Each structure stands twice: as C-alpha cells, then as structure tokens.
C-alpha cells in the first residue's frame, strides 16, 4: 500500500516510548510557577525601589543572591541535583527581602537567608517538604534575634529619589514625615509602632487615620519593610496571582476579612485600644502576608475549607499580637503558627471521596 510510497517508515519496535497514562500533560512546571510568582512580585519590587531607592534594591539583590547561593551550596554539599533552576530559592529570597527594612545591612540579609533556606527549608528535605514558610521563618528569626535593626531603624520613604536615597539615612525627608502626620524623627517609625506608642492618649490615632494618611498607606508612602508598605503594588501582584491560578482566593479573603472584623470589633468597643480596620489592613505586613506568604502552596492547606480556617487563624493571631502582643506586627508569627497546624487542618477538612456516605460507611 502507500507505505512503500511514503518516505517515512512506520515505527519499528524499540523506537516507541512506552509509558503509563495519561499521555497528555498540562503545560505547567514548578519553575514556571515560581517565575510567575516572581513576576507577580514585580509591582512590589518596583514600589520598594520607588519609595526607598537603591538601598532597597541592594537588600533585594543580597537576599536573592544569598538564598540562591545557599541553595546551590547545600545541594553540592548533600550531593543532590541542584534545585536552583526551580527558582523557589529566588522566590524565598525576594519575599524575605520584602520583609526587611530598606537599609538592612548585608549580614542581616545573610542571616535571614541562611535561616530561610537552610534551617526552614533544606533540613526538612527541601522544596515541598518544609512545614513552615521559609521567608516567614527567616523574618521571625531576625525579628527575635535582631529586634533593633528589624524594628527601629526605619528610613522614611523618598518617593522617586533613587540615587538621592543614599543620603536619606542621615538627612531626613521632613515633607514625607509631615504628610504622614505622626512621624517625628529622621528615622521614622512604622504607623504600627506609632499606634502602639500612642495607645495611652485619649484620641491617639487621629493623625494616623486622616484621608491623606490612608492614601499614603495605600500607595506605600510610609515607613516599613520594603514590600509591606505598598498595598497598591501588592494588590496589582495579587491580580496576577489569581489570574495565574497560583493562589486560592479563600486564604487572603479569610486573612483580611478576619482582621477587618476583629479590629472593627476592638476599635468600636474601645477606640483607644487600636485604630480601625482600614488602618490595620493597609499597614504592616497584612497585604504581603495575606497574598504572598500565607498562600505559599507548600505550607497552606489543600482544601478550600481548610484555606478558610487557616486564613482566619492567621487573621486572628495577627490582630492579637498587633493589639496586645509585644511586637507591633504579628503577621509572620501568625503565618508560622498556622503553618504548624496545616496537617491537622488538612486531616480535618478532607471530605470523603465521591460516593461515600455515612450510610455506606467509610473506612475511617
């Protein structure tokens, strides 16, 4: 038949690939997911550079470089295939950087990266095996170990002044401070620590809750860690996260919703205890925590119901620490604590397979 006319011969045995079904695969991979996360972090990165200048860029380069280097060295040391190309270390590094103050020293970045990559991730078995979010663990370790550099050495944002920002450490930017209303020193405080310090006054949060200051919180024109500040940038990135199907919307909605409800109740019953819900949502690590850290695939629950419980837990713990705890911010603590509960949440939320009923009797 036409076989003779055809130049292409029918396959000989041995030339065919034999494998188990399915023979179709979605076009997805771990490295693609990680690159998409990096892309979604881009608005926050740009916002950080816009507000804090080149020092911010330096912190991000340090953290990403240290994380990737440590990942590479660990794989070499353990004689494993290098996992550098899945870019998970880069994501951890970048999120860690966004959790650090803008003028962090290189050694702070190095210590944070070591804790994140080696202690929080690799000793548990590497990607996918870590029970805790590496970046959150890195931040928590620095927060406890180096409380001074992590909570007091804030630099006021200098929007758009990339190179000039080098001077910002010594020369204050009073305009920015004046606009925020509550900042008094060249090294400005985050709105959250101001809130904490002023809690005794009668109406301590008036200056923090003007329309102007809310606008500044929203766009990120305030003191704080690199990625914490701009809610706008995080939200733009969040659209990407949802569009790429990288996160479950249940987690950020549960985190932010719980925070809003919790702080609204506390604020309305006792206005001198804490500012209102909008303040809490727009300041500190609420946004980056809810969208980029709590949603980490490895350390969040698998089921929708589980995601809601997980997110609500983070929201409550964060608010408790913020309002009554020893630190002005509690997002990373809350994430790490809830990470520990994920296996239990998964177990609790797993529904029986399709077709199982109580009458039919499950094995469990």
């Amino acid at each position: 038949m036409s076989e003779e006319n055809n130049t292409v011969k029918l396959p000989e045995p041995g030339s065919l690939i034999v494998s188990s079904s399915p023979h179709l695969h979605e076009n997805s991979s771990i490295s693609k997911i990680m690159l998409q996360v990096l892309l979604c972090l881009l608005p926050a990165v740009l916002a950080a550079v816009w507000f804090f200048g080149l020092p911010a860029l330096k912190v991000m380069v340090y953290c990403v470089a240290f994380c990737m280097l440590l990942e590479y060295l660990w794989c070499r040391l353990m004689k494993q295939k290098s996992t550098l190309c899945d870019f998970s270390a880069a994501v951890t590094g970048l999120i860690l950087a966004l959790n650090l103050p803008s003028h962090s020293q290189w050694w702070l970045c190095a210590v944070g990266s070591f804790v994140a990559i080696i202690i929080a991730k690799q000793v548990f078995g590497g990607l996918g095996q870590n029970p805790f979010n590496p970046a959150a663990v890195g931040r928590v370790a620095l927060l406890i170990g180096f409380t001074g550099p992590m909570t007091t050495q804030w630099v006021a944002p200098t929007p758009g002044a990339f190179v000039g920002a080098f001077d910002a450490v010594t020369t204050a930017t009073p305009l920015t401070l004046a606009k925020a209303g509550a900042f008094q020193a060249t090294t400005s405080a985050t709105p959250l620590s101001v809130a904490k310090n002023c809690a005794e006054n009668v109406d301590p949060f008036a200056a923090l809750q003007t329309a102007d200051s809310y606008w500044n919180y929203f766009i990120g024109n305030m003191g704080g860690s690199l990625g914490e500040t701009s809610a706008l940038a995080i939200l733009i990135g969040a659209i990407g996260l949802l569009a790429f199907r990288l996160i479950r919307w249940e987690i950020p909605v549960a985190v932010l919703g719980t925070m809003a409800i919790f702080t609204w109740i506390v604020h309305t019953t006792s206005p001198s205890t804490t500012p209102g819900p909008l303040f809490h949502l727009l300041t500190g690590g609420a946004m980056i925590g809810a969208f980029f850290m709590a949603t980490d695939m490895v350390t969040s629950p698998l089921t929708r119901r589980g995601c809601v419980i997980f997110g609500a837990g983070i929201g409550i713990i964060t608010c408790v620490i913020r309002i009554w705890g020893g630190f002005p911010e509690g997002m990373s603590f809350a994430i790490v604590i809830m990470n520990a509960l994920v296996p239990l949440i998964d177990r609790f939320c797993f529904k029986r397979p399709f077709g199982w009923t109580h009458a039919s009797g499950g094995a469990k």
Partner: protein
Amino acid sequence: MNSTQKVVKFRGGVHPREGKELTASRELRIAPLLEKYIVPIRQSIGAPPTLCVKKGDAVKKGQRIAEPGGFVSVPLHSPTSGTVGDVVEIIGVTGAAEQAVEIIADGQDEWGAGLDPIPNWENTDRELLKKRILDAGIVGMGGAAFPTHVKLSPPPEKNIDTLIINGAECEPYLTADHRLMLDRGEAALIGASIAAKILKVDRVFVGIEENKPDAIQKMTELASKYKINVVPLRVRYPQGAEKQLIYALTGRKVVEGGLPMDVGCVVMNVGTAAAVHNAVVLGEPLIERITTVTGSPVADPANFLFRIGTPIRKALELCGGVTTPPAKVIMGGPMMGFAQSNIEVPITKNSSGVLLMAPEEVEQFMGNPCIRCGRCVAACPMNLLIPQLSVMVEAEKFDMAEHNYVMDCMECGICAYVCPAKRPLVQHFRRAKAEILAKRRKK
C-alpha cells in the same frame, strides 16, 4: 423526546485539548479485507474463552471460534471466512503476553450459518434476547470490555429504573462514538431499546457532550421515534466515566466498590448499543467495530470500521502511513489509553482509538517533589487527597493508602495531567491498588 433532563455538575475534572477536529468531520471508512487477522482470544473481563477450532479448520465469517469459559465470559467469532492459522503468543494491549489465533482470509468473506435475525424483537422473550447478546460475543466497547449479557442480568433484588447510553466520549482525540452516532445512530437507539426491554426500564438517556452538536441534533431527531431522552452534557473530562455520568444524569452517587446497578442504573456505550442492534436485528456477532486512527503523525486520520484482529500496522497503512515517525502509539485515548511497544498489536472489541503522538508532543520528565499546589485535589473527580496518597505510596505504606481511599481511584489521569511537579501519580495509585488487591486475594 427532547432534552428536558436536568444535568448535575460533577466535582472536579479538566478540559484538555480536544484534538477531535482531526477526525470528527471525516466520514466513516470501511476497512478493506485483509489477508490475515490476529484475534486475541481473551477480549473481555472474566474467564477467558476456550478455542473450539484448530489449525487448518475452515471457518466462515461470524463462525464461533471460542466458547465462553463461564458466566462472565463471551464467545469469540471469526472476523472473516478462511482457515484457522497458528495460535500465537502476542504482546497484548496492556503489554502483557497473551494468546491470539490467526485467521487466514480466503477473500470470499462469506457468512456462515450462525445467528438468525430477530426483526420482531419487541415480541421476543427477554431471556432469548439476552442469550442472543451472549451468543454474539458482545462486551462493553467503551473500554472496560465487561460482558454485556452480564450487565443486562442484574440480580432481581436490584431495582433498575434507568438505562444510560454513554455517548459522552470525553477522551480527547477520539471520535469513534461521535461518528457512530452520526452514521449509525438509529442502530444505537434500537440497541438501547432492546436493552431497555431486557431490563424492563422506561427511562433511557443518551448522554452526549456538548462539543458534538451535530450528534446531539441527529440523535435527538432519531430519538423522537423511541422512548429515549437525548441529554447534552457539560464538556468536562471525565464526563463519560460511569460514576460521573450517572451522577450528572440522575444525581445518584455510586459508592466505592459498588456498581451502577446499586443505584438502579445500567450504563452502556453507544457502540455497544449498536452492536446489540446488529446482533439481534441483523443476526451479526461482534466481529467489527469503529475505531479512530488519529494523531498529528498520521497522514490521513479517520474513523474506520475495522474487523476485530486488525493489527495497528494495517490500520496505519490504510491511513496513508505516517508523515513523521511517531514517538508514541497509544491504544485508546491520551488520558487512559495504553502506550504500545510495537504496532503488531491487534484491534480488539474495546479498542476505541489508535492515537499516534509526534516526538515533540511527548513529554518525558523526572518526577519532582510535591509542592502541594492542590491542583490535583481541586481537579480529582473522586475527591481524593492525592498529595498525601502519593507520598504514602512512595513510602510503601499501602495499608495507610487503602485507609485513605486509594481504591476509589479510577485512574482517569487528571491528577497527573495537572501536576506541575510531573509526579507519576497514576502509576503510584495503580501500584497501590495492585498491592492491596494482591493482599486481599491472599486472605
């Protein structure tokens, strides 16, 4: 009747690229007679039949060449007239060695004295019709190859009220059922009516995925003559899976280890229904079927009416060969089909398609660790906790996997399809199921 039936959405599922456009609009072709057929002796679930002819015997087309080996077993028939050749050992569809008998065609293609047509089946005894279906060697042609006469003999305590004819054809690339409905839709509907009579049910559905509007239209037109309801279904793999199909059409859930008859349903593929028609009305045993030969390397992809026992090689030659050397030859569809090691494997009663994949379409990869992205959990139609299960299998904790419902897995392949870490999830679950079944047998 028109489709007023309310359709329920099943959980999970995916929509892979369809690939059906390669063959869907192309007319059904009748494969010419070959010189030799290689007929695997065991073509159904259950006891293998025993050969009742020997080498050198003259056989007619449709003559019985093997007797059923038990109740769950069907006879086998010669695909054409000629002589019986050797009994050879071949590599079967699943890769395991199996016995096959060669039939050397004499070119006459002459029917033997076999089954008498039963044109007035409406007034024929139900047991007689059931016996005819057994005698014709009919098995489920959608994939599982379960003997149809067994399916039509539910125990009396099961109260069957619904017959579902499965025309979903949710597997990508395959269009055999689609073409069958377009070209032989009436036969399928008559077959369905015969099955409904045997089961004494009034409610008959034909479920068709909405990506086959022409088939839905054709079948709806034809069905007006019969008491049959044609229902368009959501385009979502695995819509054609038995449990999902029953749920979509009736809202009933089949429990694990249960059968459709437990919820009053019998599910039958459209091809099987057409074969029932042929057996009863025309008196023809099951010796041919429609199979899709497709894939980008195939020069002239099409649906063919092949005799059972046609090697893949001959099927490909009929399609004008290949334009590029294929990297994979799959018997069945891309989601659940079996990759073949050679192209001498013959088409059997449940071969719905022969799919070729070009090298660039075949992904080869190493499995990575699970990153718990949860895509498999969201997509699993059986609602299994796949990440945990796969880790249990990796750790060889089969008891734990059994405890966590691994036996509910139907191997539809969705989890491995969506997995970004490219984990061999279906293999894991197949392995766990095999280990668990082996252990159960020992007990």
